């Protein structure tokens, strides 16, 4: 599907945690079709920034607007996948997806085969390996149609093949008019992205 | 011959085949004994002069109560075998016995409680024997619950083994202390009094039924074990061949 045009405007964002200034005067504009990689050393505030953008962390100073509207009104257009597993260990792979997405089972199954979990839909998540668990969480990228993706270290624990698959999916998503923000410490080769460097406040 | 025979029982495939035959034998034997013993006890044994016809519950209650205790001991033996000889089949037996044992314990409790109504006028009193039976039921429940909580069968088996062993060491202490507790208070409530000696016409059918229930328990445990073995060995070639042939 093709998304309507989106505009994300971050202006003069500033954040402190534990008395450490993480960023200030942060202003960016993002539009449909763009990919933004948030980079920076450990503890620079990447996760904090992404969570702020997803509405999970309160804005301390500054403003975030989506299509000129305040963020709060747009939360259901956001797909956020963070550090945490985002899946319930005691449920099967399929049941996990069923709860968080509103598509039918065939779509879910095709999403699962896209992430290489084909024969696993009946396995409990706790019986999966680390990377397989991440794949299960990422499967939502194949079956939810939120235009704004916010992915915190999506490549963690993924093998080379899966990294490629994910890159392809992100490319497809922004080609459809979506936006993608992500962090990672290994610059992906296949993507065409802008970079925002954090961690250089004085 | 002895050891080889023992080890052959340890092989799932041989067990599955042999247990099938044994199960059949046990099933029919138990059926005959139980029908005979129960009819005898219900219809032909003389009426108890004190309790009237309500005493006929004894032909179910006592065998089942015996079994409830015996099966916990059997489970402990299985736990020892599991840890000492690492025999997987012992774990299978433990799993099967836990469920059957709990069923028989519940049956003993319920039959006793129902019997209590006409004899004592109440379903439940905190009598020593009743209390320790209740605790036995909880011990069984613990084993079943623990197994259900752990995904991996091997791991669950070992955890249950530890629990059963700790439980069986405690069981005599529990029984003793419950008895002591009961006498400590000298409750006004009734107790299972020492019965006068039964006439043979009463105890012979009881004996038949006791034997019948033991064999029925063996039948049930073997049946359950066969199912569990099949489930656990579902990837083994012998299971595939067996099912493929069928």
């Amino acid at each position, binding site marked *: 599907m093709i998304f309507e045009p989106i505009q994300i405007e971050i202006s003069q964002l500033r954040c402190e945690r534990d008395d450490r200034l993480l960023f200030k005067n942060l202003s960016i504009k993002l539009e449909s079709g763009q990919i933004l990689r948030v980079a920076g050393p450990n503890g620079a505030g990447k*996760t*904090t920034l992404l*969570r702020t953008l*997803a*509405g*999970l*962390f*309160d804005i301390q100073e500054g403003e975030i607007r989506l299509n000129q509207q305040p963020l709060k009104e747009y*939360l*259901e257009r*956001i*797909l*956020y996948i*963070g*550090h*945490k*597993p*985002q*899946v*319930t*260990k*005691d*449920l099967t792979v399929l*049941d996990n997806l*069923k*709860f*968080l997405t*509103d598509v039918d089972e065939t779509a879910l199954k095709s999403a699962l085969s896209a992430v290489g979990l084909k024969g696993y839909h009946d396995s*409990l998540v706790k019986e999966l390996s680390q990377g397989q668990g991440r794949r299960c969480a990422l499967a939502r990228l194949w079956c939810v149609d*939120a235009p704004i993706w916010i992915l915190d270290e999506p490549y963690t624990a993924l093998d080379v093949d899966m990294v490629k698959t994910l890159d392809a999916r992100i490319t497809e998503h922004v080609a459809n008019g979506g936006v993608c923000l992500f962090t990672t410490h290994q610059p992906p080769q296949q993507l065409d992205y802008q970079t925002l460097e954090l961690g250089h406040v004085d | 011959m002895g050891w080889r025979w023992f080890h052959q029982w340890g092989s799932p495939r041989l067990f599955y085949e042999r247990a099938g035959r044994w199960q059949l034998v046990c099933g029919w034997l138990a059926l005959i004994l139980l029908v005979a013993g129960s009819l005898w006890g219900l219809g032909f044994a003389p009426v108890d002069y004190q309790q009237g016809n309500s005493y006929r519950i004894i032909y179910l209650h006592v065998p089942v109560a015996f079994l409830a205790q015996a099966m916990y001991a059997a489970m402990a033996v299985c736990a020892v075998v599991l840890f000492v000889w690492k025999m997987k089949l012992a774990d299978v037996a433990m799993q099967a016995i836990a469920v059957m044992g709990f069923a028989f314990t519940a049956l003993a409790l319920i039959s006793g409680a129902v019997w209590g109504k006409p004899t004592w006028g*109440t*379903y*439940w*009193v*905190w*009598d020593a024997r009743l*209390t320790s039976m*209740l*605790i036995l039921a*909880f011990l069984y*429940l613990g084993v079943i*619950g623990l197994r*259900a*909580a752990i995904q991996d069968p091997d791991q669950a088996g070992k955890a249950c083994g530890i629990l059963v062993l700790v439980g069986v060491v405690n069981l005599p202490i529990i029984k003793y202390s*419950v008895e002591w*507790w*009961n006498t400590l*208070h000298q*409750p*006004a*409530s009734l107790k299972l009094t020492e019965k006068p000696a039964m006439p043979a016409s009463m105890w012979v059918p009881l004996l038949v039924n006791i034997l019948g229930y033991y064999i029925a328990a063996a039948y049930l445990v073997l049946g359950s074990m066969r199912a569990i073995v099949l489930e656990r060995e579902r990837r083994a070639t012998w299971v595939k061949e067996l099912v493929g042939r069928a």
Partner: protein
Amino acid sequence: MSIEKRMLARELKLIAARPGDIFKPMWFLILVISMVPLALAPDSDLLAEIGSAMIWVATLLALLLNTEHLFQSDFSDGVLEQWLFLDRPLAWLVGLKLVAHWLFHVLPLILITPIAGLMLSVPTEVLIALLITLFVATPALTCFSGLGAALTLGSSRSGILGVLVMMPLFVPVVILAAGVLIRATDGSDTLPLLALLGAFSVVAATLVPIAVSAAIRLNIGGSN
């Protein structure tokens, strides 16, 4: 499927995956109840006298302990924060979760109390009153303990905060329930007290989910 249905379906699947979850509080109740005569005396008159109160306290405990971690695993798995992206108000989702919890976890607990009553030789009419009070009071108790659970989400091993906040709220419920039981023993009219209890439950069920959702939001904001 609507979110409401998916939520219910998920709850059912969680139960199917861990059937123990339903039985554990019941089992706990019966175990605690059978400890009482062991610690006290096997004297059925004394037991009958304190029986209904014991059952009430034990049920309260079982409920509390079962609700204490209501949101914990979803929170630490990061599933709870996904609720914020669903197009329903958080308070509504929380309310649903509480209803599902009451249905699948509290109701079975209530239904087992007659057996506990039998064990302590509680008279039948008191037992019936007990059942009714539990029906009427548990919605409030569930809501409050859910609030306790939400408040303590952030602290890795939940401290006392949530629990301290909840304690005064349980007192009126327990007192009212005790009043009903005493009147049932006397044979006098229990309806006014039950109505009060019911009103308490209704108010709790409408207002507490809002507080719970605020508490959840708060804790999500502090986590990474």
